[in-house]
């Protein structure tokens, strides 16, 4: 079936999840860096 949802629908959930994970990796790294 090609007439339902496409990548712009499913891709949004993927991007939202990946965004949160990537951000936490950076935040934990930045906090450790600041602690020296």
């Amino acid at each position, binding site marked *: 079936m090609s007439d339902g*949802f496409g990548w712009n629908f499913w891709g949004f959930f993927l991007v939202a999840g990946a965004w949160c994970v990537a951000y936490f990796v950076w*935040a934990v790294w*930045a906090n450790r860096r600041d602690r020296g």
Partner: protein
Amino acid sequence: MANAPTVFFVVLGAYGAVIMGIAWWSYRQTRTEDDFLVAGRSIGAVVGGATLAATQLSSGTVVGTIGFHYMSGVSWAWIWPGMWSGWIVAAVWVAPKLRAFGGVTVPDYIAARYNSELARVVSAVLIVVAYTVYLSAQYTAGGIIFQALFRWPFFAGVLVVALMTLVYTWMGGMRSSVYTDFAQALVMVLAFCVAVPLLLYRVGGFDVMGRLLTGLDMRLTGWYFGFGEITVFALAFALSAATAPYQIARIYAMRDVATVRLAIGIAFVFQAIIGSVALIAGLGIRALFPVLPTPDLASSILALQVLPPLAGSLLLAGALSAIMSTCDSIMIISAAGLSHDLYGKLIRPAASEAEKLRVNRWSVLVVGLIPLGLTFVEMGLMQEIVVDYAKIIASFFFVPVLFGLNWRGGTTAGAIASMLGGFTAFMTWWWQGPAYPWGIDPIVAGVLSSLILFVGVSPLTRPVPAAALEPFFGSPE
């Protein structure tokens, strides 16, 4: 849903009792202006993240975003990553420096960084004006919800939202605002997470929903908004999220810089969940009810006609939560502009803590009551109103805050010219809409004018003394 009003009032009563309990607890802990405006700088990452998210998610989300998905389909969801990129700017270049500075209001930062009380006054006045009008949009959303549900007169719904928010903000200030935001964020997530599976079940699953929507209009599952339009909308949200004064006040209230970084991550999680379920909710309602008088009714229809009474009532409590959590943040930031920046710094710097606290509470009443009059003004779709206000605030704050924190060369005159010029350019463009001059959106005109004035005027005017720059850049080598 014949017994919906009874169930709703029971849910609303329980919700109100929790909110007022938090307000009473906060009231007893609030003894100084620092307690009232920055909650004694005691907020941790989880509560901090929830309050950042709840403040971001306003009536624009629950009424407006669901309505926009109803009207335009999937593509609107892509404004979220755009807006989150603004939060990345905040996390990397704005929030850590501001929290380390440790002011009470954004005009505190402006006055310190640019070594000027005039710059403080300009920023405080712009904040009070822009946010007072924005508050009326949030009240209007409350009026729409009660009108749609119970056929109450519009102004009665406005009063319920305004008075409930005023009481708890008056009592406990920032502490009340932050902890009620936390409760409200949980209500929003719970409400949506109950509502969406029920809605999906009613529609028949994702596959059926997708095919129904494509059958109605190909653009609903494709690109109703093109890349350019999404980018401009996302830019407006991103620019305002990066330096929004009501979020900066919350950042000041957190324990330390490390807490701020984690809180922004937790805010992303809340927003990702709510953004996802708002998308599914708007699409599901369109599949079930293809023709509504206005897209802003989509969330009310979901609560009234799709969900069982308890889930529907929870969703409406979630909608009220979204509105009230934004209202309380706006009330505090506007009140702080009047009480801390104008009264406390200029009129009576020697005021006692008790007097400052009293003036803060009176200011909450003033800035909370004035927008009631503005709710009689006819407004457009909720999402458009929210986008417009996000743009106004970005047009005068983005440059002096972001560039001021990261470029030593910005001067007092540059900052004042940048704020006034950005605001004036935005308003000039906006009044000429919707066919904007040369096709340039007001946000682009506002921020660009603000930037040009800041980098153009600063090198020609007297530099800020090194001592004033030290809290932000350290000692010059």
